[in-house]
Protein backbone atom coordinates (compact mmCIF):
# COMPACT_ATOMS: atom_id res chain seq x y z
CA UNK A 1 0.00 0.00 0.00
CA UNK A 2 2.77 2.42 1.06
CA UNK A 3 4.81 1.43 -2.02
CA UNK A 4 1.83 2.20 -4.25
CA UNK A 5 1.44 5.64 -2.64
CA UNK A 6 5.19 6.27 -3.07
CA UNK A 7 4.93 5.27 -6.74
CA UNK A 8 1.94 7.57 -7.32
CA UNK A 9 3.73 10.39 -5.50
CA UNK A 10 6.94 9.91 -7.49
CA UNK A 11 5.05 9.82 -10.79
CA UNK A 12 3.10 12.95 -9.85
CA UNK A 13 6.30 14.79 -8.92
CA UNK A 14 7.99 13.71 -12.17
CA UNK A 15 5.02 14.75 -14.32
CA UNK A 16 4.77 18.09 -12.48
CA UNK A 17 8.52 18.66 -12.96
CA UNK A 18 8.24 17.88 -16.69
CA UNK A 19 5.34 20.33 -17.04
CA UNK A 20 7.16 23.00 -15.02
CA UNK A 21 10.41 22.61 -17.00
CA UNK A 22 8.61 22.62 -20.35
CA UNK A 23 6.60 25.74 -19.54
CA UNK A 24 9.61 27.49 -18.05
CA UNK A 25 11.58 26.76 -21.25
CA UNK A 26 8.58 27.85 -23.34
CA UNK A 27 8.47 31.12 -21.40
CA UNK A 28 12.18 31.75 -22.11
CA UNK A 29 11.63 31.11 -25.82
CA UNK A 30 8.56 33.38 -25.94
CA UNK A 31 10.50 36.19 -24.22
CA UNK A 32 13.32 35.79 -26.76
CA UNK A 33 10.78 35.67 -29.60
CA UNK A 34 9.59 39.18 -28.81
CA UNK A 35 13.08 40.58 -28.18
CA UNK A 36 14.48 42.21 -31.32
CA UNK A 37 18.06 41.62 -30.13
CA UNK A 38 17.50 37.90 -30.66
CA UNK A 39 17.45 38.38 -34.43
CA UNK A 40 20.57 38.81 -36.54
CA UNK A 41 22.00 37.62 -39.83
CA UNK A 42 22.94 34.20 -38.37
CA UNK A 43 19.52 33.47 -36.82
CA UNK A 44 17.74 34.60 -39.99
CA UNK A 45 19.90 32.23 -42.03
CA UNK A 46 19.06 29.32 -39.71
CA UNK A 47 15.35 30.21 -39.89
CA UNK A 48 15.39 30.21 -43.71
CA UNK A 49 17.18 26.84 -43.78
CA UNK A 50 14.76 25.37 -41.25
CA UNK A 51 11.72 26.54 -43.22
CA UNK A 52 13.26 25.02 -46.34
CA UNK A 53 13.89 21.67 -44.59
CA UNK A 54 10.47 21.51 -42.94
CA UNK A 55 8.08 23.11 -45.41
CA UNK A 56 9.67 22.97 -48.85
CA UNK A 57 11.53 19.65 -48.81
CA UNK A 58 8.49 17.88 -47.43
CA UNK A 59 6.10 19.41 -49.99
CA UNK A 60 6.03 16.54 -52.56
CA UNK A 61 5.20 14.00 -49.83
CA UNK A 62 2.70 16.39 -48.29
CA UNK A 63 0.94 17.04 -51.61
CA UNK A 64 0.72 13.28 -52.21
CA UNK A 65 -0.75 12.63 -48.78
CA UNK A 66 -3.18 15.55 -49.11
CA UNK A 67 -4.45 14.31 -52.48
CA UNK A 68 -4.78 10.62 -51.57
CA UNK A 69 -6.01 11.02 -48.01
CA UNK A 70 -8.07 14.15 -48.66
CA UNK A 71 -9.82 12.81 -51.75
CA UNK A 72 -10.72 9.50 -50.14
CA UNK A 73 -11.90 11.15 -46.93
CA UNK A 74 -13.97 13.80 -48.71
CA UNK A 75 -15.54 11.10 -50.89
CA UNK A 76 -16.57 9.10 -47.84
CA UNK A 77 -17.75 12.12 -45.82
CA UNK A 78 -19.84 13.55 -48.67
CA UNK A 79 -21.34 10.11 -49.36
CA UNK A 80 -22.34 9.81 -45.67
CA UNK A 81 -23.80 13.35 -45.73
CA UNK A 82 -25.86 12.40 -48.78
CA UNK A 83 -27.02 9.08 -47.27
CA UNK A 84 -28.07 10.77 -44.01
CA UNK A 85 -29.84 13.57 -45.85
CA UNK A 86 -27.69 16.28 -44.26
CA UNK A 87 -27.02 18.17 -47.49
CA UNK A 88 -28.07 21.48 -45.93
CA UNK A 89 -25.21 21.12 -43.40
CA UNK A 90 -22.66 20.26 -46.08
CA UNK A 91 -20.57 23.44 -45.71
CA UNK A 92 -20.56 23.41 -41.93
CA UNK A 93 -19.54 19.74 -41.72
CA UNK A 94 -16.71 20.19 -44.26
CA UNK A 95 -15.39 23.36 -42.60
CA UNK A 96 -15.53 21.91 -39.07
CA UNK A 97 -14.05 18.58 -40.07
CA UNK A 98 -11.39 19.68 -42.52
CA UNK A 99 -10.27 23.20 -41.61
CA UNK A 100 -10.62 23.09 -37.83
CA UNK A 101 -9.83 19.47 -37.00
CA UNK A 102 -8.29 17.36 -39.73
CA UNK A 103 -5.85 19.75 -41.41
CA UNK A 104 -3.94 20.81 -38.27
CA UNK A 105 -3.89 17.23 -36.94
CA UNK A 106 -2.58 15.55 -40.11
CA UNK A 107 -0.05 18.35 -40.64
CA UNK A 108 1.29 18.23 -37.11
CA UNK A 109 1.61 14.44 -37.22
CA UNK A 110 3.62 14.60 -40.44
CA UNK A 111 5.90 17.41 -39.23
CA UNK A 112 6.36 15.73 -35.85
CA UNK A 113 7.37 12.46 -37.51
CA UNK A 114 9.79 14.15 -39.86
CA UNK A 115 11.14 17.30 -38.22
CA UNK A 116 10.67 16.86 -34.46
CA UNK A 117 12.67 13.64 -34.46
CA UNK A 118 15.37 15.32 -36.60
CA UNK A 119 15.56 18.33 -34.26
CA UNK A 120 15.74 16.07 -31.21
CA UNK A 121 18.58 14.00 -32.68
CA UNK A 122 20.39 17.09 -33.98
CA UNK A 123 20.44 18.85 -30.60
CA UNK A 124 21.38 15.61 -28.80
CA UNK A 125 24.31 15.02 -31.19
CA UNK A 126 25.46 18.62 -30.71
CA UNK A 127 25.32 18.12 -26.95
CA UNK A 128 27.27 14.85 -27.10
CA UNK A 129 29.90 16.36 -29.45
CA UNK A 130 30.22 19.40 -27.15
CA UNK A 131 29.29 21.67 -30.06
CA UNK A 132 26.96 23.60 -27.75
CA UNK A 133 30.05 24.43 -25.66
CA UNK A 134 31.67 25.83 -28.81
CA UNK A 135 28.77 28.25 -29.23
CA UNK A 136 29.02 29.19 -25.58
CA UNK A 137 32.78 29.85 -25.86
CA UNK A 138 32.17 32.23 -28.78
CA UNK A 139 29.47 33.97 -26.73
CA UNK A 140 26.72 32.79 -29.07
CA UNK A 141 23.44 32.24 -27.26
CA UNK A 142 22.15 28.77 -28.22
CA UNK A 143 18.59 29.92 -27.53
CA UNK A 144 18.91 32.75 -30.08
CA UNK A 145 20.91 30.86 -32.65
CA UNK A 146 19.63 27.28 -32.44
CA UNK A 147 16.34 27.06 -30.59
CA UNK A 148 14.41 30.20 -31.52
CA UNK A 149 14.64 29.75 -35.34
CA UNK A 150 13.55 26.11 -34.99
CA UNK A 151 10.53 27.02 -32.86
CA UNK A 152 9.50 29.90 -35.16
CA UNK A 153 9.90 27.54 -38.12
CA UNK A 154 7.63 25.02 -36.36
CA UNK A 155 4.89 27.63 -35.94
CA UNK A 156 5.18 28.97 -39.51
CA UNK A 157 5.38 25.50 -41.09
CA UNK A 158 2.39 24.03 -39.27
CA UNK A 159 0.24 27.09 -40.08
CA UNK A 160 1.25 27.17 -43.78
CA UNK A 161 1.09 23.41 -44.39
CA UNK A 162 -2.20 23.13 -42.53
CA UNK A 163 -3.69 25.88 -44.72
CA UNK A 164 -2.28 24.10 -47.76
CA UNK A 165 -3.80 20.78 -46.67
CA UNK A 166 -7.19 22.47 -46.18
CA UNK A 167 -7.04 23.97 -49.69
CA UNK A 168 -6.11 20.61 -51.25
CA UNK A 169 -8.88 18.73 -49.44
CA UNK A 170 -11.50 21.42 -50.08
CA UNK A 171 -10.54 21.31 -53.77
CA UNK A 172 -11.07 17.56 -53.88
CA UNK A 173 -14.37 18.20 -52.09
CA UNK A 174 -15.42 20.24 -55.11
CA UNK A 175 -15.10 17.15 -57.30
CA UNK A 176 -17.26 14.97 -55.05
CA UNK A 177 -19.85 17.68 -54.38
CA UNK A 178 -20.26 17.98 -58.15
CA UNK A 179 -20.58 14.20 -58.56
CA UNK A 180 -22.86 13.56 -55.57
CA UNK A 181 -24.82 16.79 -55.18
CA UNK A 182 -24.42 18.36 -58.62
CA UNK A 183 -22.98 21.56 -57.07
CA UNK A 184 -21.18 24.00 -59.36
CA UNK A 185 -17.90 25.72 -58.36
CA UNK A 186 -19.82 28.89 -57.47
CA UNK A 187 -22.42 27.11 -55.34
CA UNK A 188 -19.73 25.04 -53.60
CA UNK A 189 -17.70 28.18 -52.83
CA UNK A 190 -20.82 29.95 -51.52
CA UNK A 191 -21.68 26.98 -49.27
CA UNK A 192 -18.16 26.97 -47.80
CA UNK A 193 -17.91 30.75 -47.39
CA UNK A 194 -21.31 31.00 -45.68
CA UNK A 195 -20.27 28.18 -43.32
CA UNK A 196 -16.88 29.70 -42.44
CA UNK A 197 -16.95 30.88 -38.85
CA UNK A 198 -14.40 33.48 -37.78
CA UNK A 199 -14.17 32.02 -34.26
CA UNK A 200 -13.42 28.53 -35.63
CA UNK A 201 -10.71 29.89 -37.92
CA UNK A 202 -9.09 31.77 -35.01
CA UNK A 203 -9.20 28.61 -32.86
CA UNK A 204 -7.71 26.63 -35.73
CA UNK A 205 -4.93 29.21 -36.17
CA UNK A 206 -4.13 29.26 -32.45
CA UNK A 207 -4.14 25.45 -32.44
CA UNK A 208 -1.70 25.32 -35.38
CA UNK A 209 0.61 27.84 -33.69
CA UNK A 210 0.50 25.90 -30.40
CA UNK A 211 1.15 22.61 -32.20
CA UNK A 212 4.08 24.11 -34.10
CA UNK A 213 5.51 25.67 -30.95
CA UNK A 214 5.45 22.54 -28.81
CA UNK A 215 6.45 19.96 -31.43
CA UNK A 216 9.73 21.83 -31.84
CA UNK A 217 10.21 23.00 -28.26
CA UNK A 218 9.84 19.55 -26.67
CA UNK A 219 12.43 17.82 -28.92
CA UNK A 220 14.90 20.65 -28.24
CA UNK A 221 14.41 20.25 -24.50
CA UNK A 222 14.89 16.49 -24.68
CA UNK A 223 17.91 16.89 -26.98
CA UNK A 224 19.50 18.98 -24.23
CA UNK A 225 18.92 16.10 -21.80
CA UNK A 226 21.47 13.97 -23.67
CA UNK A 227 24.61 13.22 -21.65
CA UNK A 228 28.17 12.86 -22.97
CA UNK A 229 27.40 9.26 -23.86
CA UNK A 230 26.49 8.36 -27.46
CA UNK A 231 23.84 5.92 -26.22
CA UNK A 232 21.94 8.81 -24.66
CA UNK A 233 20.98 10.06 -28.16
CA UNK A 234 18.37 7.36 -29.00
CA UNK A 235 17.02 7.53 -25.43
CA UNK A 236 16.63 11.30 -25.73
CA UNK A 237 14.87 10.97 -29.12
CA UNK A 238 12.59 8.21 -27.83
CA UNK A 239 11.53 10.17 -24.74
CA UNK A 240 11.18 13.38 -26.72
CA UNK A 241 8.95 11.83 -29.37
CA UNK A 242 6.70 10.21 -26.75
CA UNK A 243 6.27 13.61 -25.10
CA UNK A 244 5.63 15.25 -28.49
CA UNK A 245 2.82 12.74 -29.10
CA UNK A 246 1.35 13.38 -25.63
CA UNK A 247 1.55 17.14 -26.26
CA UNK A 248 -0.28 16.77 -29.61
CA UNK A 249 -3.12 14.82 -27.97
CA UNK A 250 -3.21 17.27 -25.04
CA UNK A 251 -3.48 20.33 -27.34
CA UNK A 252 -6.08 18.59 -29.53
CA UNK A 253 -8.25 17.76 -26.49
CA UNK A 254 -7.90 21.31 -25.15
CA UNK A 255 -8.93 22.79 -28.48
CA UNK A 256 -11.95 20.45 -28.67
CA UNK A 257 -13.01 21.55 -25.20
CA UNK A 258 -12.61 25.21 -26.25
CA UNK A 259 -14.71 24.69 -29.37
CA UNK A 260 -17.52 22.84 -27.61
CA UNK A 261 -17.93 25.19 -24.61
Amino acid sequence: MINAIIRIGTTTINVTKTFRDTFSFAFTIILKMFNKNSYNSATRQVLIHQIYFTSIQTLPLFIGISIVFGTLLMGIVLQIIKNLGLAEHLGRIIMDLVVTELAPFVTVLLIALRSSSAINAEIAVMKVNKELNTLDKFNIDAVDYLFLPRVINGVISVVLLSAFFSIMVLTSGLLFSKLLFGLSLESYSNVLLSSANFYDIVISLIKCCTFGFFITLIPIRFGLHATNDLTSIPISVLNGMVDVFIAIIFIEVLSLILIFI
Partner: protein
Amino acid sequence: MPLISNLDVWVNIALIKQYHENLSANKAQELVLGYLTRYSLENISNKRNPALTNRERFCAMLLRAVMVRDSIVVIDRPFTIIPDVQDDRFIYDSLKSIDDSFKECHIFDYLWSKERYRTIDV
Protein backbone atom coordinates in the same frame (compact mmCIF):
# COMPACT_ATOMS: atom_id res chain seq x y z
CA MET B 1 36.32 23.55 -29.51
CA PRO B 2 35.00 21.40 -32.37
CA LEU B 3 33.53 22.77 -35.56
CA ILE B 4 29.75 22.46 -35.68
CA SER B 5 29.18 19.29 -37.67
CA ASN B 6 25.89 20.20 -39.34
CA LEU B 7 27.22 23.47 -40.77
CA ASP B 8 29.42 24.01 -43.82
CA VAL B 9 32.96 25.23 -43.15
CA TRP B 10 32.20 28.75 -44.37
CA VAL B 11 29.14 29.00 -42.08
CA ASN B 12 31.22 27.78 -39.13
CA ILE B 13 33.76 30.54 -39.78
CA ALA B 14 31.27 33.24 -40.72
CA LEU B 15 28.97 32.54 -37.78
CA ILE B 16 30.82 34.83 -35.36
CA LYS B 17 30.71 37.83 -37.71
CA GLN B 18 27.08 37.13 -38.61
CA TYR B 19 25.98 36.74 -35.02
CA HIS B 20 27.98 39.46 -33.28
CA GLU B 21 28.29 42.03 -36.07
CA ASN B 22 25.10 41.19 -38.00
CA LEU B 23 27.14 40.84 -41.19
CA SER B 24 24.93 39.66 -44.05
CA ALA B 25 25.35 36.07 -45.22
CA ASN B 26 26.70 37.13 -48.63
CA LYS B 27 29.30 39.50 -47.21
CA ALA B 28 30.31 36.97 -44.55
CA GLN B 29 30.72 34.27 -47.21
CA GLU B 30 32.87 36.62 -49.31
CA LEU B 31 35.03 37.40 -46.29
CA VAL B 32 35.49 33.72 -45.46
CA LEU B 33 36.31 32.82 -49.07
CA GLY B 34 38.95 35.56 -49.02
CA TYR B 35 40.56 33.98 -45.96
CA LEU B 36 40.29 30.44 -47.36
CA THR B 37 42.01 31.65 -50.54
CA ARG B 38 45.07 32.59 -48.45
CA TYR B 39 45.39 28.89 -47.64
CA SER B 40 44.31 27.82 -51.16
CA LEU B 41 41.43 26.01 -49.47
CA GLU B 42 38.45 27.56 -51.28
CA ASN B 43 37.34 24.02 -52.16
CA ILE B 44 36.51 23.20 -48.51
CA SER B 45 34.09 26.11 -48.20
CA ASN B 46 31.00 23.93 -48.61
CA LYS B 47 32.37 20.84 -46.88
CA ARG B 48 31.41 19.76 -43.40
CA ASN B 49 33.64 18.84 -40.48
CA PRO B 50 33.72 15.04 -40.98
CA ALA B 51 34.78 15.51 -44.64
CA LEU B 52 37.88 17.58 -43.75
CA THR B 53 41.47 16.42 -43.47
CA ASN B 54 43.32 17.22 -40.24
CA ARG B 55 45.15 20.17 -41.83
CA GLU B 56 41.96 21.56 -43.39
CA ARG B 57 40.20 21.26 -40.02
CA PHE B 58 43.07 23.06 -38.28
CA CYS B 59 42.93 25.94 -40.78
CA ALA B 60 39.14 26.19 -40.49
CA MET B 61 39.37 26.31 -36.68
CA LEU B 62 42.11 28.92 -36.88
CA LEU B 63 40.06 31.09 -39.25
CA ARG B 64 37.05 30.76 -36.98
CA ALA B 65 39.17 31.97 -34.05
CA VAL B 66 40.40 35.08 -35.89
CA MET B 67 36.83 36.09 -36.75
CA VAL B 68 36.55 37.40 -33.19
CA ARG B 69 37.35 41.12 -33.13
CA ASP B 70 40.85 41.87 -31.72
CA SER B 71 41.32 38.20 -31.18
CA ILE B 72 43.98 36.60 -29.03
CA VAL B 73 44.40 33.14 -30.48
CA VAL B 74 45.05 30.36 -28.01
CA ILE B 75 45.96 26.97 -29.49
CA ASP B 76 45.85 24.16 -26.99
CA ARG B 77 47.93 21.11 -27.98
CA PRO B 78 47.82 21.75 -31.77
CA PHE B 79 49.33 18.34 -32.57
CA THR B 80 46.19 16.65 -31.26
CA ILE B 81 44.33 18.29 -34.17
CA ILE B 82 47.11 17.63 -36.70
CA PRO B 83 48.80 14.44 -35.43
CA ASP B 84 50.30 13.75 -38.86
CA VAL B 85 52.41 16.95 -38.71
CA GLN B 86 55.93 16.46 -37.37
CA ASP B 87 57.00 20.01 -36.43
CA ASP B 88 55.55 23.49 -36.04
CA ARG B 89 56.27 24.59 -39.63
CA PHE B 90 52.68 24.07 -40.75
CA ILE B 91 51.32 25.87 -37.66
CA TYR B 92 53.75 28.74 -38.16
CA ASP B 93 52.91 29.09 -41.87
CA SER B 94 49.17 28.94 -41.14
CA LEU B 95 49.50 31.72 -38.57
CA LYS B 96 51.79 33.77 -40.83
CA SER B 97 49.19 33.77 -43.62
CA ILE B 98 46.66 35.52 -41.41
CA ASP B 99 48.90 37.49 -39.04
CA ASP B 100 47.05 40.71 -39.89
CA SER B 101 43.86 39.28 -38.35
CA PHE B 102 44.81 38.64 -34.72
CA LYS B 103 46.61 40.53 -31.97
CA GLU B 104 48.49 37.73 -30.26
CA CYS B 105 48.83 34.00 -30.44
CA HIS B 106 49.69 31.61 -27.63
CA ILE B 107 50.33 27.92 -28.09
CA PHE B 108 50.13 25.58 -25.13
CA ASP B 109 51.53 22.10 -25.23
CA TYR B 110 53.14 19.42 -23.08
CA LEU B 111 56.85 19.69 -22.30
CA TRP B 112 57.58 16.46 -24.12
CA SER B 113 56.39 18.09 -27.35
CA LYS B 114 59.05 20.82 -27.00
CA GLU B 115 61.27 19.34 -29.70
CA ARG B 116 58.51 19.74 -32.25
CA TYR B 117 58.72 23.52 -31.91
CA ARG B 118 61.54 25.36 -33.65
CA THR B 119 60.82 28.82 -32.24
CA ILE B 120 63.15 30.29 -29.61
CA ASP B 121 60.56 31.44 -27.07
CA VAL B 122 59.22 27.99 -26.27
